[in-house]
C-alpha cells in the first residue's frame, strides 16, 4: 500500500520529468524527421556520439556551453550523414540506420578509450554538468514547486522545444514545406520545393534535438559517459513519436507515459516484484501501446474512407 503512494509523491513525479527529458528530445527529433518523410531509426547513434563529445568538449574547455556545442555539432553531422547515404547513395534507410548504430556503439567506446584510456566510463575526465535551476516563485508552491522546480536546464529546454517545434511546423513557411514534403513529395516538387534540401533541413533540426537528448545523458545528471548508456532510449523515443501521431502535443504526452514507466522501473525497489520484470515495463508498455495505437490508426483510416 505504501508503495502505491510513492507514485504520487513529488519526488517520484520529479523523477518522471527528469527521465522523460532525453525521451522527449528524441521523440521530437523523430517527429520532425517523420513529418519530413525521412524517418530513420539511428537516433541511438546521434545520442551516443553527442553524449560522448559533450563530455569531451566540456572537459577540455571546462565550459558547459562548449561541451553542448561540440555534442550538438557532432550529432548534426551524424544526422546529415544518414541523410546523405539515404538520399544520395540510395542506401535503404533501415540498413543505413543499423550501420550507423553499430558504428556508434563501437566507435564511441573506441574514442572513449583513446581519450580516457578506459573502455567503460569517462570518469577520469573532469567533464561538467549542466546547471540545475531553481525557479524563484515556482519553488515556493507546495507540491507543485517540488515537482517542477529544480530541474536541469536541459529539462526545461526539452519542454520548451515542444511549443518551438509546434511553431516551426505550423507557423513558418519552411515548416509548411516540410510537412508537404513528408506527405506528398511529388506535390512538393510540382510546386518547386526541393525535397532533398527540405529533408536535409529536417535532419539538421532533428539532429540538434536528438543530440541534446544525448547530452542530457552525460551532462545532465551524472557527469560522465558510459558505454551504451542510451540503453534503447533512442528507440523508445521513436515509439513515443509513433503514438504521438506526429503532433508535438501528442508526442509530449506519449513521452510522459514512457517516462513514467521508466521512472517506475527505477523506483520500485521492493522485493515483491523482481527487478528484471520491472525493467521490462518501459519496453512492454511501448509494445502494448503500438498495438492499441495502430488499431486506432486503422479505424481512423476506415472512417476517412467513408
Amino acid at each position: 500500500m505504501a508503495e502505491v503512494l510513492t507514485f504520487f509523491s513529488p519526488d517520484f513525479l520529479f523523477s518522471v520529468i527528469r527521465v522523460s527529458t532525453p525521451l522527449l528530445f528524441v521523440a521530437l527529433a523523430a517527429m520532425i524527421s517523420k513529418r519530413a518523410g525521412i524517418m530513420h531509426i539511428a537516433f541511438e547513434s546521434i545520442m551516443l556520439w553527442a553524449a560522448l563529445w559533450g563530455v569531451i568538449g566540456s572537459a577540455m574547455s571546462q565550459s558547459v556551453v562548449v561541451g553542448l556545442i561540440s555534442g550538438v555539432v557532432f550529432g548534426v553531422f551524424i544526422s546529415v550523414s544518414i541523410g546523405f547515404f539515404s538520399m544520395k547513395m540510395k542506401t535503404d534507410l533501415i540498413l543505413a540506420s543499423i550501420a550507423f548504430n553499430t558504428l556508434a556503439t563501437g566507435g564511441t567506446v573506441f574514442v572513449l578509450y583513446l581519450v580516457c584510456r578506459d573502455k567503460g566510463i569517462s570518469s577520469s575526465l573532469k567533464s561538467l554538468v549542466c546547471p540545475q535551476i531553481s525557479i524563484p516563485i515556482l519553488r515556493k508552491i507546495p507540491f507543485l514547486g517540488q515537482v517542477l522546480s529544480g530541474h536541469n536546464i536541459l529539462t526545461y529546454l526539452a519542454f520548451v522545444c515542444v511549443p518551438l517545434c509546434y511553431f516551426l511546423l505550423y507557423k513558418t513557411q519552411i515548416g509548411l514545406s516540410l510537412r508537404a514534403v513528408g506527405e506528398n513529395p511529388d506535390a512538393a516538387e510540382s510546386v518547386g520545393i526541393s525535397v532533398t534540401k527540405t529533408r536535409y533541413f529536417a535532419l539538421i533540426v532533428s539532429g540538434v534535438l536528438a543530440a541534446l537528448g544525448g547530452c542530457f545523458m552525460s551532462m545532465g545528471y551524472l557527469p560522465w559517459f558510459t558505454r551504451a548508456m542510451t540503453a534503447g532510449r533512442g528507440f523508445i523515443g521513436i515509439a513515443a513519436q509513433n503514438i504521438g501521431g506526429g503532433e508535438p502535443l501528442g508526442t509530449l504526452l506519449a513521452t510522459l507515459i514512457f517516462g513514467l514507466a521508466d521512472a517506475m522501473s527505477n523506483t520500485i525497489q521492493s522485493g515483491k516484484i523482481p527487478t528484471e520484470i520491472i525493467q521490462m515495463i518501459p519496453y512492454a508498455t511501448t509494445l502494448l501501446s503500438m498495438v492499441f495505437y495502430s488499431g486506432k490508426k486503422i479505424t481512423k483510416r476506415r472512417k476517412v474512407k467513408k
Partner: protein
Amino acid sequence: MEPNILEMNHITKIYPNGFVANDNVTLTAKKGEIHALIGENGAGKTTLMKVLFGIEKPDKGEIIFNGEKVEIKNPADAIALGIGMVHQHFMLASSLSVAENIVLGLDNGFKRFDLKKAIEKTKSMAKKYGIEIDPEEKVQNLSVGNKQRVEILKALTRGAKVLILDEPTAVLTPQESEDLFVQLKQIKEQGHTIIFISHKLKEITSFCDRLTVLKMGRSLGEMDVGCMSEREISHLMVGREVLLNYEKPISIPKEKVLEIKNLTYIRNGKKVINDVSFSVHGGEILGIAGVEGNGQRELAELVSGLLKNYEGTILVSGNDISRDTVRMIRETGVSHIPEDRMTYGVVKNASIMENIIADRYYKKPFIKNALLDIPKLRSLANNLVAEYTVKCDDIDQEIRMLSGGNMQKVVVARELSSSPKLIIANQPTRGVDVGASEIIRNSLINMRTNGAGVLLVSADLNEVLDVSDRLIVMYGGEIVASFPSAKAVDEHELGEFMLGIKKQDMKEGQA
C-alpha cells in the same frame, strides 16, 4: 480573330525504349478559348502536355508562347511563363488544409507562415473565379470534385494564363462534371485559355470551342467543335486502319463459366461499376469494349478475387466467389492476364522461370519430397518459352530485361497453360508489338475453341472486333451496348458507344 497564345509546332517525342509518343504534332490554341485535345489512351495526349509543362523534353519541334519562342526545361519554367497543369492524379498534401496547399511553395524560408493571410488569399481567388471552397478544410476531407477545384485554384494562383486539365472527368460523377464545365466557362470569361484533354466526346462537344485529334502519336488536325458531327469525330478517333483476320471456327457455347448479376462496386463514393449483368459461356469469347477507366479493371479484379466488398452476385462455374480467396478462385480454373503488367503481372527482379511457374509451384507434379522439382519446372518453363517464342537469353534471365511484348508473352504463357475454364484477359496486347500481339490473340482463340470461356477486355478496336464472338460496351461503369455477334458490329457505331455518345436501350442490352 483572336491571336494564338500557344503554338506547339512539329513536336516529336520518342521514349528511350523506342516508343514514338508524339510524331510531328502541331497544336495551336487561341487566347481565351477552351481547346480540347482528344484521342484514345496511348494516342499521345498526355505526352504532349508533359512536353508543354516541362516534364518531358521533345526530340524535335518548338513551342511558341505569346508570340515568342520559349524553352521549357522544367515545371518551374512552365509555371513562370503562365502555364498551369491539373494532373489526373492530384498533387495535393492530404492532411494540409486547402489554403496551405494553395500557397505551398510560393515562399520558402523562416518567414512566418501566416495562415490567416493564406486563407484570405484563397478566399479572394476563389471569389474571383466563382469557385466555392472552404479554405480551412483539410484536403483529405474533400470530395474528389472539390479536390480538383483546389488544384485548379492552385494553378490559377500561380498566374496560369493557360490551364491544362488532364482527363479531369475521369474521377468525377456526372453531376460533378457538369459543375466543372460551368466552372471552366467562368474561368474562360476571366480571359484564361484552357486545354482540355479527354476521350469523352459528348462532354467535349458540349462546352469546348475547338479541338485537336490525336491518334497513334499523330495529329489528325484541328477543327471547330461545330464543324463535324460527333459521329464523324469518333470515326477519326477510333476508326480502324488495319484489318487483321483471325481464323476462327464457329464458337459453340457451352455452360456458363461466369455469371455476373447486378454487380455494383463503389469507391470513394463513386459507382465505378453500376448494376452490371452479363455472362460468359465456355467455348466463347465475350469482348468488353471500352476506353480504359470505365470500370473494366475493377471488373477483372472483382472476378479474380483481388477486390471484395461488392454488391450483387458473381458466380464462377456456378459458385459464388464472395468468400473465396484469390488462390481458391484460381484453382476453380480462372486465369487472369492483368492490365498492369509491371505491378501485378510479373516479379521484375525474378527470372523468367520463376515468373512462369508462379501459379503452380506448389501443385503436385512439381513437388518431389517436399521440395520443388526443379528439373520438371525448368523443362516446363523451357517448353512454354519455346511455344510462345519468347525472345530471351535463357529462362534464368531476369524478366525485366525483356521487351514489353516478350514479358507479356511470359504472362500469357503462364496464365493459359493451367487449363483454365475462364480466362480474364485485360488489355492483353497493350504495349505489345504486332508479332507478339498476334501470338497472344491466337492463343486466346485456341483456348476458346478448346472449350474455355474468355472475357476479353480491350480498348483496342481491332482486337475486340476481330477476336470476340460476342461484344458488350462499357462506359462510365455501365453496360451501354450489347451485340450478340461481334462480326455484325458496325465499328463507327461501336466507337460512339465507347465514347459515350450513344446508349442502347437496356432491355435490348441484357447480355
